[in-house]
């Protein structure tokens, strides 16, 4: 049995406390009205980005006006335009703490989903190497119920207009937007929240029964519960791939409701799947270093590292396929998505590729390196940070635009959810023995060597 070390517990509480303070600070310092934004813009930009754009649009406007010789209306138009600009910036700045919270919230929720998907695949594939890691995976997925509740509350808050993350939730916006109007059969709050509820419920249901059966199997005299787990895992995987795809449209793609991409679901999946596998590796390495996983040897670690490597490449393949197809065809309604990201998010956009592809492929290609703890921890940290950046890139441009910054709000949100994650996961690990007793493949798994 694992005992939650008091140091780690304190550490997780500190993370949560610091995170909460930072999140609170982010919300308190967000501007309340246009007046504040005006002061802010005047203070921080002397011909800054926003101003320049504004002036450019004004001057082009002016030329039109001069041609029409309507001098007196120009002033009025300029004033309303200025006001529109300020409102726009206000919304972006008000979104910032919300979006920071959202990215961290969905990131940790989906990490535990990635682990759950990996776990289900291992069950269905009847993998002979992984049963010694099942309890670790179950421990990590213990975050799922907690994360689901927090995430669901967040979605409800969006629906109650506490923020402007999803512009299609704003009836004011929809009323003036033909494109969103045509999508409102799908993108409307009741349908959206019911879908979210069904997905979260379905995933948690699988997690609950799978773990329950696995624990009961320890005390059983036959393999019935194992077979039952096999069946529900297969069923879950079918449900998962459908719900995952829809989830990615609902929770991430609908941030940019004017844009769509068909392989988006796979892309999001690859991102959190590799993060989940990386998280399994990290937790396993931690528990192993504390002497809790007697039967886990370097071959198990090696296998996990191969998965980290392979799925990192898979993520890159999808990233590039999505980017290259849109870049190549350059259709205006699709390409704006990437233009925003390349112009305003250049470093995070390409930095994510370096962190999620270039670094892991060069480090994890070596067989010997895949067995060295510190190499894997280093690669794992880079991969996890890289995929946080990936989610950041998916969500921030549609919510805060050029007002992005990885500052107190963003870091604090990650710290809070990281603390919560550590607390929940390691608490769950203390609840059951770390080695399943009567799994049909447990002997093979104990002696696995590669």
């Amino acid at each position, binding site marked *: 049995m694992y005992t939650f070390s008091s140091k780690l517990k304190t550490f997780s509480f500190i993370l949560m406390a610091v995170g909460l303070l930072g999140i609170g600070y982010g919300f308190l310092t967000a501007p309340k009205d246009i007046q504040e934004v005006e002061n802010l813009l005047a203070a921080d930009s002397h011909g800054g980005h926003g101003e320049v754009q504004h002036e450019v649009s004004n001057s082009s406007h002016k030329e039109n006006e001069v041609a029409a010789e309507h001098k007196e209306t120009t002033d009025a138009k300029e004033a309303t335009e200025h006001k529109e600009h300020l409102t726009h910036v206000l919304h972006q700045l008000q979104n910032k703490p919300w979006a920071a919270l959202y990215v961290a919230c969905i990131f940790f929720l989906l990490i535990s989903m990635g682990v759950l998907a990996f776990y289900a695949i291992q069950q269905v594939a009847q993998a002979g190497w992984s049963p010694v890691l099942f309890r670790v995976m179950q421990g990590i997925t213990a975050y799922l119920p907690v994360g689901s509740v927090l995430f669901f509350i967040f979605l409800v808050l969006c629906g109650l207009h506490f923020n402007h993350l999803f512009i299609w939730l704003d009836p004011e916006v929809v009323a003036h937007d033909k494109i969103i109007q045509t999508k409102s059969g799908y993108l409307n709050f009741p349908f959206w929240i019911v879908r979210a509820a069904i997905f979260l419920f379905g995933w948690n249901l699988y997690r609950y029964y799978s773990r329950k059966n696995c624990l009961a199997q320890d005390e059983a005299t036959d393999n019935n519960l194992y077979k039952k787990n096999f069946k529900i895992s297969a069923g879950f995987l079918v449900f998962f791939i459908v719900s995952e795809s829809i989830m990615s449209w609902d929770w991430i793609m609908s941030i940019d409701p004017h844009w769509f991409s068909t392989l988006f679901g796979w892309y999001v999946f690859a991102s959190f799947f590799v993060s989940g596998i990386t998280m399994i590796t990290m937790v396993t390495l931690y528990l192993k270093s504390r002497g809790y996983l007697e039967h886990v040897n370097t071959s198990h670690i090696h296998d996990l590292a191969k998965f980290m490597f392979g799925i990192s490449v898979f993520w890159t393949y999808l990233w*590039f396929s999505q*980017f*290259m197809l849109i*870049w*190549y065809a*350059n259709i205006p309604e699709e390409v704006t998505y990437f233009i925003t990201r390349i112009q305003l998010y250049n470093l995070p956009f390409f930095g994510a590729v370096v962190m999620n592809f270039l670094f892991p492929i060069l480090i994890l*290609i070596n*067989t010997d390196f895949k067995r060295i703890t510190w190499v894997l921890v280093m690669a794992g940290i880079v991969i996890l940070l890289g995929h946080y950046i990936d989610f950041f890139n998916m969500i921030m441009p549609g919510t805060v635009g050029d007002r992005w910054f990885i500052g107190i709000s963003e870091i604090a949100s990650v710290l809070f959810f990281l603390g919560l994650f550590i607390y929940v996961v390691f608490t769950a690990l203390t609840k059951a023995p770390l080695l399943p007793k009567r799994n049909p493949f447990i002997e093979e798994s104990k002696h696995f060597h590669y």
Partner: protein
Amino acid sequence: MSNKVIYAIYNDDDILMDAVKKTRAAHHHIEEVFTPFPVHGLDKAMGLAPTRLAICAFIYGLLGLSFGTWMMNYIMIQDWPQDIGGKPSFSYIENMPAFVPIMFEETVFFAAHLMVITFYMRSKLWPFKQAENPDVRTTDNHFLMEVAINDNEEELVSFFKNTGAVEVKVIEKQ
């Protein structure tokens, strides 16, 4: 000095593995082992050095990547930078995404083919090569260990008889 060797023949890979370990422990030099299929762990038991073929492949891959990059840069950017369907050909990086499929395939192509050719050269395999079977049964169901004799024929023969060999032959080579 005569060039005598012992052919110890086995009909089970477990017995072979055992025999290899015993032979190594007795410090008899194993010239070669012939098996009809890969025996897992045989190289470790024989103490063979690990292969460096993967390192070769990595280097060949880098070579292929460089070749693909150089080729596309020379043809599409340096030599004749045409406007083809509005694609920017002012610098390599601007048109890079269009070259990635080629760079990728060149990498894989070079890595795979050069590695295979390296393998053939290092293992001395080619179409009209004389087969080096010491005993035709080794391609079907027998395992053969070849050990050199240095004036200790009697001792070696009895040693191999004790390792579970179904047949021990002394052969004069060439």
